[in-house]
């Protein structure tokens, strides 16, 4: 027995090899080489670019991926890998990485004020703490250099010329060469041209020349290499202790692990930096007032909205599919095309158009269809929900109609015939034969449609913006807000972005949708076994 298995597998392998070689031919091999050559050329170019910009991690990834791809496609076997590789790569780049990154952000404090790393936060704090001494003049500057390093040749507005460097405070010089009213050169120093200055921008922007021996007088800095101003700093950074000190009040701000320099009484200096905060965002999602208060209502409405949307579109789509599937119906093709139209328009555009049509005193519905009635379609909490469901029905039924038509047509006629011969009435045929068969194909679509509507941000945002809001409530959540639009409002109100909180919420929503979907899929399986 085992011998035979081995033999067969050997033989089949052999056969596969022969088939491979026979089918390939010289043209195939050439094509293969050309295509892989293109891939490799792009990869090599990518490697150059990446190496030049010091992106070693990504560069090594590109190199490894390229090698693996070459190995797979030049190998004579690895047939499954040849089919799987492209899909797996796409999966990694566009799915796993994105989901993983979102998950990671959910555990950080990434938000307005916590946008970068600590070193950059210190840079930014120091540069915004620098204050120009009030009423101090503009000094004309020539950047000069000697063996000790860079310095400034400074001409004060009153014509006095002095020179200094970061170690030596300004001191007067007499014998400077003048160009108009600006000193451009002095003995003992080489003057830098504008081009030279551009080559050393980093050094020059960082160059600080003390104004006098007293550090409280501040120091000269030049932002553009030709004029300098006297600055003092309101913050002092102590690199050893890692603390910031407010020069005027003496308050010490230290890194207390909250992602920002914090004083002893809890005051934070912003910008701070990004840190991981564990489950803080998840805790906030359930404890913050502006979220907790409306959470239950919004969750209920989200589920109701998603369920009703799926149910209404499914039944309308199915009904129309059955009607248009009847052979006695004339001009079915024409009707079917007309039926698809709402599906062909971009959904967010349709939602905007509907928002205009449902406007209370200017909308087409009230003005023309209802002869000037003033029904608050979008501004009454209940009617707004009805409008949302109606518009979603309009948007969604063509899809269900399409799928149901396909599913109906795939039901063999003989099954129906057999039932009829057995004496089943049309309703019985539909209920007992067609419906169960339909559900087998349509159940996964209903589930995915539920998941889609659960996060149908476009529709809500474009049609009502989540409104109408209850002016009496103190939270920024409206009657038609679903979870995802509420998250958007909470995490991105005005200029305060909270990516961490938003990511945490997406994880929570994912868990909700996944649970509901898994339970439904179990049910579907039971359905399949039934048949």
């Amino acid at each position: 027995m085992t011998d035979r298995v081995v033999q067969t597998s050997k033989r089949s392998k052999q056969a596969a090899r022969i088939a491979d070689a026979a089918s390939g031919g010289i043209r195939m091999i050439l094509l293969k080489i050309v295509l892989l050559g293109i891939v490799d050329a792009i990869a090599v170019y990518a490697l150059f670019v990446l190496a030049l910009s010091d992106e070693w991690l990504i560069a090594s990834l590109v190199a490894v991926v390229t090698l693996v791809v070459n190995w797979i496609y030049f190998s004579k076997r690895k047939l499954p890998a040849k089919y799987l590789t492209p899909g797996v790569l796409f999966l990694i780049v566009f799915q796993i990485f994105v989901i993983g990154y979102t998950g990671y952000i959910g555990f950080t404090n990434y938000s307005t004020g916590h946008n970068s790393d600590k070193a950059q936060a210190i840079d930014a704090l120091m540069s915004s703490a620098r204050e120009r001494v009030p009423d101090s003049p503009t000094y004309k500057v020539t950047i000069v250099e000697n063996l000790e390093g860079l310095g400034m040749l400074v001409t004060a507005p009153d014509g006095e010329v002095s020179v200094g460097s970061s170690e030596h405070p300004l001191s007067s010089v007499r014998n400077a060469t003048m160009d108009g009213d600006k000193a451009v050169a002095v003995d003992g120093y080489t003057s830098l041209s504008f081009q030279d200055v551009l080559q050393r921008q980093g050094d020059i922007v960082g160059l600080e020349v003390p104004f006098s021996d007293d550090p409280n007088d501040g120091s000269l800095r030049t932002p553009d290499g030709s004029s300098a101003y006297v600055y003092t700093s309101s913050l002092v950074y102590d690199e050893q202790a890692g603390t910031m000190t407010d020069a005027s009040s003496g308050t010490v701000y230290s890194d207390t692990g909250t992602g920002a320099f914090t004083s002893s009484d809890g005051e934070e200096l912003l910008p701070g930096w990004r840190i991981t905060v564990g489950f803080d965002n998840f805790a906030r999602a359930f404890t913050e007032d502006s979220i907790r208060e409306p959470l239950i209502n919004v969750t209920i409405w989200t589920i109701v909205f998603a369920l009703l949307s799926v149910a209404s579109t499914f039944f309308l789509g199915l009904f129309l599919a059955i009607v248009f599937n009847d052979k006695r119906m004339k001009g079915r093709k024409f009707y079917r095309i007309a039926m698809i139209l709402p599906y062909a328009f971009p959904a967010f555009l349709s939602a905007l158009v509907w928002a205009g049509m449902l406007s209370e005193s200017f909308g087409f519905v009230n003005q023309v269809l209802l002869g000037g009635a003033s029904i608050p379609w979008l501004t009454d909490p209940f009617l707004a929900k009805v409008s949302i469901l109606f518009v979603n029905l309009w948007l969604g039924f063509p899809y269900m109609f399409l799928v149901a038509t396909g599913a109906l047509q795939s039901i063999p006629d003989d099954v129906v015939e057999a039932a009829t011969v057995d004496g089943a009435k049309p309703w019985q045929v539909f209920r007992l034969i067609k419906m169960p068969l339909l559900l087998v194909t349509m159940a996964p679509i209903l589930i995915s449609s539920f998941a889609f509507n659960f996060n149908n941000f476009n529709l809500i945002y474009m049609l009502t913006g989540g409104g109408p809001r209850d002016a009496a409530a103190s939270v920024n959540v409206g009657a038609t807000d679903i979870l995802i639009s509420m998250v958007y409002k909470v995490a991105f109100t005005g200029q305060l972005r909270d990516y961490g909180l938003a990511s945490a919420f997406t994880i929570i929503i994912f868990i909700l949708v996944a649970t509901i979907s898994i339970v439904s899929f179990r049910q579907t399986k039971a359905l399949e076994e039934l048949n």
Partner: protein
Amino acid sequence: MKVKTRSIITAGALAATVGLALVGCSSDNGDGGDGANNSTTALTVWVDAERVDALKDVAAAYKDKTGIEVKLVSKDTAKIKDDFLQQVPTGKGPDITMGAHDWLGELVTNGVVSPIELADKEGDFLEVAYAASTYEGKQYMLPYAVENIALLRNADLVPEAVGTFDEMIAAGTAAGVTPFVVQQGPESDPYHLYPFQTSFGAPVFSSDENGYDVSDLQIGNAGGIEYANWLAAQGAAGTINTEVTGDIAKEQFTTGQAAFWLTGPWNVGAALDAGINVAVDPIVTPGAEAAQPFAGVKGFFLSEQSKNKVAANDFLVNYLATEDVQTALFESGNVLPALASAADAASNDPIVGGFRLVGMDAVPMPASPAMGAVWQFWGIAEAAILNGADPAATWEKLAADVQGALDK
């Protein structure tokens, strides 16, 4: 074996995509340019798509003058701010980006912009432009254009300018059309109603020479209550209607069905194209004080992580702040230049001049992130009042809610 060919092609396409995507992730780096390694310095400037052409000549002229190349990158206006916020910390953002002054709070709080020093040129700019480009007493933006709303009048319907709000309604009614439209929505539009609010002496925050004091909320003062009462009366009379969205207001005015339209320069083109005889008037005041609309100021920001700060500062302060360049930018966008001398020249045009006259009273829109707390309650309260809620109680609740959100 067709399938196999296909799979190879797919693999090729895939590897190409992955490769390009990965390169794309990093290729911006080259633009930043490490001054020490390159013989010529290049500045990368993000520009919103509409302004690229205007800046092309400016960039070329700057290169002729200094040898510094300015690489313009056209960006989608809606994405510039977020991209800038995300890319600067990675060190791969641009040296300079175009933007609007109300981003300042967010940009500064995130530490992605560097202060710039205008020094003696401060006075060369329109006062509101200079004020708008500072945040907490420090200047971060080089302004190039100022926008504010003003009252458009259909001069064929109402030939003479009017003084007060009630006169405006009377004049419009006498002309036999809808007297006045202003962009609103289900949640009102506090931006467009702000001049009316300030005419009752109720700004959002108090302000001094350092800008707004966001810890001193003024919205709920006595003037605010007075304004709320006035707003309730307008809602009852139907002169300000939350049903009038921007599109409806535009349609009413451009088809001659409305006599006055409170809107910004961005809508003037549409009215002129529709053949309306447009006059730009000062905003009528329902209250005792000046009507102060919000000014929106456009400008350029310097990245905190730029490696070319000397060149960038030179480009901003010594070049973009000159009359020729500001005029060139004006000609492409027809928005009032921020530099006073260029603004004077541009004001010869009656439309631009009209907006400038109104802009004399304009105040910069507060750039603080704290404004988010204000916006989320402001419009909903105004909409409620317009639609018949008790004005004083609603307004007091607004002030309390905003204060609560600010204290959080």
